[in-house]
Each structure stands twice: as C-alpha cells, then as structure tokens.
C-alpha cells in the first residue's frame, strides 16, 4: 500500500516531469514506472524480446527497441495485448511508400489513420461499430494515442520538428477495427492478399476526415448518391494530395455497404466506380494543384490515384445506412499493411 500512496502523492510532479520535457501529447499520461513497464512486457509475451530492434523512425532515425515502444504504450494507457498492433503499425509506417519522414514534418495536418483486421480485432475488443473513431469504451483511443507518442518520442516529431500549421484532433488518436462480421464483403486484409485468420494492421496518411451522407431514401438506390458525393470529394483540388498518387480511404458504414452490395457492388466494383467518378476535369484545375505534386492526365481528366485498387475501402461504423467517411489522403503517401506482431515471430 505504501507504494500506491507514494505514487498518488507524487502524481502531479511526475506528470509535470514528462510534460515539461515535451514527452507527452499534452494530455496526462500513465507514468511509465519500471514496474508497470516490466509487467506490461511480461503480460504481452514480448518480455524476452524487449531489446530487439523494431526499426528507426524518421526523422530521428535512431534504432528503437520493443522496450521503447512498450514505455510509450504504457504512457498512452494501452494494454499488453495492444503491443503487437503497435509493433505492426510501426512496421507498416516504415514502408518507404508511406513516406513517414514527410508525414512527420509537413505543415499539412496529416495524421496516421490505423485500421486493424483479423482475429485480433475481437481478441483485443477493438471498436468497429458506432463511434469506432471515438470516443468510447473500446481501446481504440489508447492504441491510437500510443502511435502518436511513438512518433513524437521515438521518431523525434516533437513541436520543433513537426511543422503542422494547425494540427488536427486525429493526431491525438485515429484507429479502428474493420467490422468484418457486419460487412457484406471480404475483410479488407483478405482483399490485399492476407489470410482471413491473420491479424493485420494498415496505416494510411489522413489529411481530413469528411463525413458523407448519401442523400437518398429506402425506396431509391444508394449507389448513385454515394458515388456522386464521394466522387466530388475525391476531386477536391484544395488539398495537397498529389493527385494520381497515394491512397484515398473510404470507410463505408455497414448499413450502406449492405445496400451497395444488394445493388451489385462488391469492393472491386466500388473501387472502379469511385476511381471513375473521382477523376478531375482539367478545367477544374485552373491553378493546377500543389506545386510539388505530379499527376497523370487521361482524356483531359486527372486521375485521383494510380489505379482503382489504390482506393482503400473499409467497413466500419454504425449499422444504419446514413453516414460513411472519406479519409482524404495527403501528397503521395501510400497506405501500407503489415501483420500484427506476435512473440512467436522470433521463434
């Protein structure tokens, strides 16, 4: 009991210690005592691998060990079962096509958005339904928050290095699990070549989170208003996405996914339709777009991304057929997926 009392007494000073050294996201943390970190690693199954290197996170670009990730996970309030998701997310963000160094330093408000598939979604109790992007009782918030702390503390993207002009709330946390059980389509990770029984984490770079209500009623088809409105969003020229590059992400609520499915749309057909409707007439770009970008013009239209398959479609959210979400991308950052790490990885 004495230890618990002592912690309570020192709590404000401990919080201040981390906050004053720019080691937090500005919110209170769980103080990563040695005991807590040891217990966390032990319970995660990664204790014997705590010294193993995960990679080097830009722009700090210095070797990061599993133990370093665990310290940040504890600070964020994540649980031991979440560590494998975090390690997979780091692995994915280090994919060169994700261009993490630019994501970390840009004046754009870009945030990593994290999507989890496979058995780990149920095992870890991730939120997939209403308010999957928060807030709520599910652990999405803590895991997503750990991603931010890792990028700041282990990647060096503190306030002097991360130049986001305004930032955005998604930079605190942005993670959900796909509602595989409620989806009429195969799980996202299966569509990318993984086995259904694999647990996979996908990261995308998200500039804006834009809600879409496909205006229709139950007597009329869903597809046309859905495609019209998402197509217009994908044509938005006031963004510094590099058109014809990157990965637009569409999160379809299960209710809308079911209606689209009933109207003959599987994921592939929806990707192709969105790709077609997202093409930008050249006359809509009198000022071009972000100077550093490059794009592909076909038949006087700018392609929204390289191929239909680059539009990433997840199913999540409430069961009603009202709200879906467009996760607008940024420059050329391409979404990347990696398996959730498990201690058996090192066997």
């Amino acid at each position, binding site marked *: 009991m004495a*230890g618990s009392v*002592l*912690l309570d*007494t*020192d709590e404000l*000073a*401990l919080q201040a*210690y*981390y906050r004053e050294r720019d*080691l937090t996201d500005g919110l209170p943390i769980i*103080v*990563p*005592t*040695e*005991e807590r*970190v040891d217990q966390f690693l032990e319970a995660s199954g990664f204790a014997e691998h*705590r*010294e193993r290197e995960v990679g080097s996170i*830009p*722009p*700090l*670009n*210095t*070797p*990061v*060990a*599993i*133990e*370093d990730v665990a*310290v*940040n996970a504890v*600070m964020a309030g994540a649980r031991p079962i979440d560590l494998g998701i975090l390690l997979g997310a780091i692995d994915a963000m280090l994919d*060169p*096509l994700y*261009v993490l*160094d*630019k994501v*970390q*330093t*840009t*004046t*754009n408000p870009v945030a990593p958005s994290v999507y989890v598939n496979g058995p780990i979604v149920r095992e870890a109790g991730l939120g997939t339904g209403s308010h999957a992007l928060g807030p709520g009782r599910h652990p999405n918030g803590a895991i997503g928050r750990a991603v931010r*702390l890792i990028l700041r*503390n*282990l990647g*060096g993207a503190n306030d*002097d*290095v*991360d*130049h*986001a002009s305004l930032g955005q709330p998604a930079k605190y946390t942005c993670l959900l699990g796909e509602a595989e059980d409620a989806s009429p389509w195969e799980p996202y990770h299966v569509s990318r070549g993984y086995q259904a029984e694999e647990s996979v984490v996908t990261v995308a770079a998200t500039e804006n989170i834009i809600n879409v209500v496909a205006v229709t009623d139950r007597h009329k088809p869903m597809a046309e208003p859905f495609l019209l409105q998402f197509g217009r969003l994908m044509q938005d020229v006031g963004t510094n996405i*590099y058109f014809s*590059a990157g990965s637009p992400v569409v999160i379809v609520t299960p209710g809308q996914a079911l209606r689209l499915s009933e109207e003959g749309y599987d994921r592939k057909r929806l990707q192709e339709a969105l790709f077609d409707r997202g093409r930008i007439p050249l006359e809509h770009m009198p000022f071009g777009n972000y*100077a*550093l*970008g*490059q794009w592909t013009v076909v038949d006087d239209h700018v392609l929204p991304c390289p191929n239909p398959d680059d539009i990433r479609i997840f199913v999540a959210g409430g069961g009603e057929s009202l709200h879906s979400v467009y996760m607008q991308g940024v*420059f*050329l950052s391409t979404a990347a997926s990696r398996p959730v790490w498990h201690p058996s990885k090192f066997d």
Partner: protein
Amino acid sequence: MAAETRRIEMSSVRVMLPTPKSAAVQWRGTTRTHSVAGERVAIVNNGWGSGDDLVDAFERILRDEYDVAEVKHFRANHERKSAAPDDDAELFARIADWADSAVTMLGNCGGCTAWTCEASAALERHGVASGAVVTGLFRPLAEFALANQNKTPEHPLVVLEDRFEFATEQGIEDSARMTLRSLFGEGSATSREESAAGVAV
C-alpha cells in the same frame, strides 16, 4: 536493455523515459567552401512555386560570376516519373552522373525541407558537393533532419530570410548571392562590378 540506462529516480519511484537510447545529434555545420570554377553545377529544385525567381538568379550569377562550365536546372516534379522514393533515388543518381556540385532547394515547408535535406545529402553521398537551402522558419527542422535523418551533421546549410514568398526582386538577388557565397565562396569581383555597372560580360 534499451531504456534501462536512462531510468531516473524520482521520489523513490523508478520511471522510464519514452525516448530511444541514442540521443538526437546536433547539426554542427561546415566551414567548407567549394570552388565551382570549371564545374557543372546543378540547381536541384523540388518545384516550390516561389522558388522559380531564385533559380533564375542562381543560374545567372553562376554563369556570369563563378566561371562554371555549365549550369542546369533540375526541377524534380518535371524530371522524375513520380515523387515515390525509388523515383527520387533514380533522379538523384541521374543528377550525380552529370553534376560536380549542386544547390538543392527549397525548404519552405515541412515536407519540402525534409526533401531538400534528403536530396542534398543524397547528392553528397554520390560525390556531388551540395548544399541545402531553406527558409528561416524551417531551420530547426533542417538542422534536425540533416543531423539525424540523413546522418550528415556537417552538411552545408543555407538559411534564407523568413516569409520568402514576399521577398522583393532585390531580396531574391541578395538571397541568391548570399547562398552562392556561402557554398562556393566569392564570385568574380570584376564580373560582378561590371554587371552592376550595366556592362555586358
């Protein structure tokens, strides 16, 4: 153990720090001045719109006052297949095949600064004497990126005034001369005086 050596005692509670074992490296800068007389000089431009006038000034002053063999403008977003890392790497290698030295620009946003530092360091690794040009707001990031991300803490860095996009023509001229002087030393004084006097050179 990665974090163990950095554990600290606080009121008998042992807490752990969330940063890597290796601390961030500080940018140290360089005193190197590289003469470009007789060399082929690349102006490596990420395409930042406000940088076009600066590119023009670099090209003119290098030709008129530095006795260079040739100057060539590589505008990255026109030169490469895409901005993907592999295509960047191919572009850097292609520039290095042609150039002896380079001015790499312009760090006037976060991602642009990261790119400028990466490009300049990559060219240096290819044997091209290069310097990165950024604006004042992005100096801390440039120093951090050069020293840590690119592992080049002594890489030449030139910092222009803030709010570059509002610079006057004279400001652009001054920035160009300051940059070239920092990277390549003084140009030909005679040529400069003749230019100032309106004498054809």
